[in-house]
């Protein structure tokens, strides 16, 4: 399968915007390609193209006016009517490591993407911990506050 670099780059950039994790953190999971292929497998090409066009427009706005970009994300990407919830599917894929075919209302049937997508799911670092059964922090670590490098409140390289 040939993938357009432009679309892949757009996927990574919009993933960072939608998840609240830096692109480098997302790349650090090693899951970007897997999730991009999951998207391509589940969403028809035409829909993806339109979605990425909208995503690029949001990201462009974000560079100058994050408040407007946030509003546009809410109105154009996060509505139930927005691209059949594609933005929500992307967020859930990163945070939970599962593909949600219809992330709306009570329709929460999902499928684990693979074993590694569990280990790398972002809900654990978001909660200042690690996925149960992986990335173990060592004997007695639980008796102290978690040790973490705070990438969330420190903007990389600035």
């Amino acid at each position, binding site marked *: 399968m040939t993938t357009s670099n432009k679309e892949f780059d757009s996927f990574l950039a919009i993933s960072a*915007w*939608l*998840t*609240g*994790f830096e692109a480098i953190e997302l790349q650090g999971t090693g899951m970007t390609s897997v999730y991009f292929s999951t998207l391509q497998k589940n969403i028809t090409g035409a829909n993806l193209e339109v979605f990425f066009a909208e995503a690029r427009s949001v990201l462009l706005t974000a560079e100058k006016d994050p408040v407007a970009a*946030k509003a546009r*994300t*809410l109105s154009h*990407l*996060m*509505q139930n009517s927005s691209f059949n919830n594609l*933005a*929500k599917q992307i*967020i*859930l894929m990163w*945070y*939970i490591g*599962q593909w*949600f075919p219809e*992330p*709306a*209302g009570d329709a*929460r049937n*999902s*499928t*684990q993407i*693979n*074993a*590694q997508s*569990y*280990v790398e799911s972002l*809900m*654990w670092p*978001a*909660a*200042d*911990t*690690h996925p*149960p*059964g*992986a990335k*173990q*922090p*060592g*004997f*007695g*670590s*639980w*008796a*102290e*506050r*978690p040790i973490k490098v705070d990438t*969330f409140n420190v903007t990389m390289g600035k």
Partner: protein
Amino acid sequence: MSENEYDVVVVGSGIAGAVLAKVLTQAGKTVLMLEAGLQAGMALKPEEDHANYQSYLERFYASTIKATNTPYPELKDALSINVLDIDAHTPYETGYMVQLGPLPFASDCLRAPGGTTMHWLGNVPRMLPNDFQMKTRYDQGVDWPISYADLVPYYEMAENEIGVAGDVTSQQGPDMNHTNYSRDYVFPMLKIPQSYQDQVWMKNTDGLDVFLYGKQYTVSCISMPQGRNSTPNDHYRYGTTVWDRASQSLKLTNNNEHYEVVGATWSGYTGERCEGNASCVPICPVQAKYNALKTLKKSDPDKIKIITQAVASQVLIEEGGSDVCGIMYKSYTDPNSIEYTGHIAKGKIYILACSAIENAKLLLASNVANTSDQVGRNLMDHLVLLTWGLLPEKGYPYRGPGCTTYIPTFRDGDFRKDFAAWISPIDNWGWSWPTFAPGSDVTEAVINKGMFGKDLRATLNANVPRQTLLHFECEQPPCPENRITISAKYKDRLDNYRPVIQYDASNYMRKSFQAAKKVSDQIFAANSIENFTVYSPSEPDYVTYDGQGYTFRGAGHIVGTHRMGTRADNSVVDKNQRTWDHKNLYLIGCGNMPTLGTSNPTLTMTALTYQAAESILKQLESIT
């Protein structure tokens, strides 16, 4: 060795079977062990053993829904109970168990090499002396035919084998202090460090006065003894348990200077300490948590034959007599095929050690050991009321073993005449049990609230680390109508019976839920915990008491289906755990426990197994 040369036939390779195999073979006896699960799980070569265990871990990672038996292969020919099958609406027959109700039985166990110790949590508090005298002291249930004092030497053997990490001096509470232990006794390893969250809890909980039905109780928080590796205690003096032929008893030897930590079965250098995987249930990736395969693999290899993929189906009685003369079993090659070959295992003494569910099923299917009509009856569990909320500060849950601290305050007291006692573990794993958090927090924020980006991340970070959960594991007394039966209508693919369950929660239990919730409310208030507990009528095991609804959950403590007692007409086995009806048939496991107490039952069951092993050795030596 040919098939009829064995001293003992043991059915089941869980902790009971493993302890028997180790003790009996090391005493020079020959053992034939039958195990229903896959050969791969029994691999003796380190590489194969490791590869198989990694396949368990990989299955756990890759499964969409993660439950207690998720890592382990599902075998159509030897089904395990799956907690995901539990349904609010009884009767139903989906899954392995047929649930007649009125309430569904909510606990599971595992049919695989190593048994349920593969997925157990590993909490190993001892029972209390009063737990053995429930009838005499509180007019509930029955007394045991043995006392706490009788069991103390065997508790020490069990704690040695499991490798308990804990602090004896802090085991203080109702009916519990240093006198519950031998003089100067220590556990093999120092206590598992108590979690950061425990320390947050203890600030406002340890020493808190609570009021319940007009009486005052002072709550305390103490460390939980656990079967997982920690730092060896230099003062621990024991080596291992051996048969002393001269005194016809089991004895703990002295160690050579220090306690030897037992690591993973594939490499002793893995799992020498708990590494904080926070996944004890359903799988410890490094086997720092004890499992029965550690014990089984110390059996004398020249004295044991293990046949896996062998499902025991009937206990055979000699014609015109009462002795057991064989155990019929069905061997399968493909665990999902209906094809099998039939065989008979032969020995001098027969031991069923394949769980309270399977032991009872096998006895009923064979119509043996049931003069008392107690087989399958008195099915018990801890009925677990959960309460959850948000701490005012981050406790940083989802880290460390499932429980490192517990509240012993309501384990014993006069109230046991009126409602059930409970143990209260403080849970280290957030709301994962009641709400499937943190996945549910993510779906709620994203799907329902449309959150994204840094707001989403910040919201999760502000809330999930404040999640906290308290258990109230309430002691279910024996009730003859809570029972396992069998029916020709319900069989599995190998034509073996499936368990048919009748189950309910009495008012004695329901009142304990009311009492527990009253205590929880006061503890939450003292800690400024914002309550998020919800009990919904649509959930399985939702019950009402005095106009209020409560949902209880299963603890996985399946107990009581072939109880021991004082007479052949009130019990299935005697105090040596030998069936009253057949002098060469022993039943081993939690099914023997006449009452449950408020302890996780594995430690006590293991102590009982040592006691039984001693009786079995005596009996073998008397006939050879």
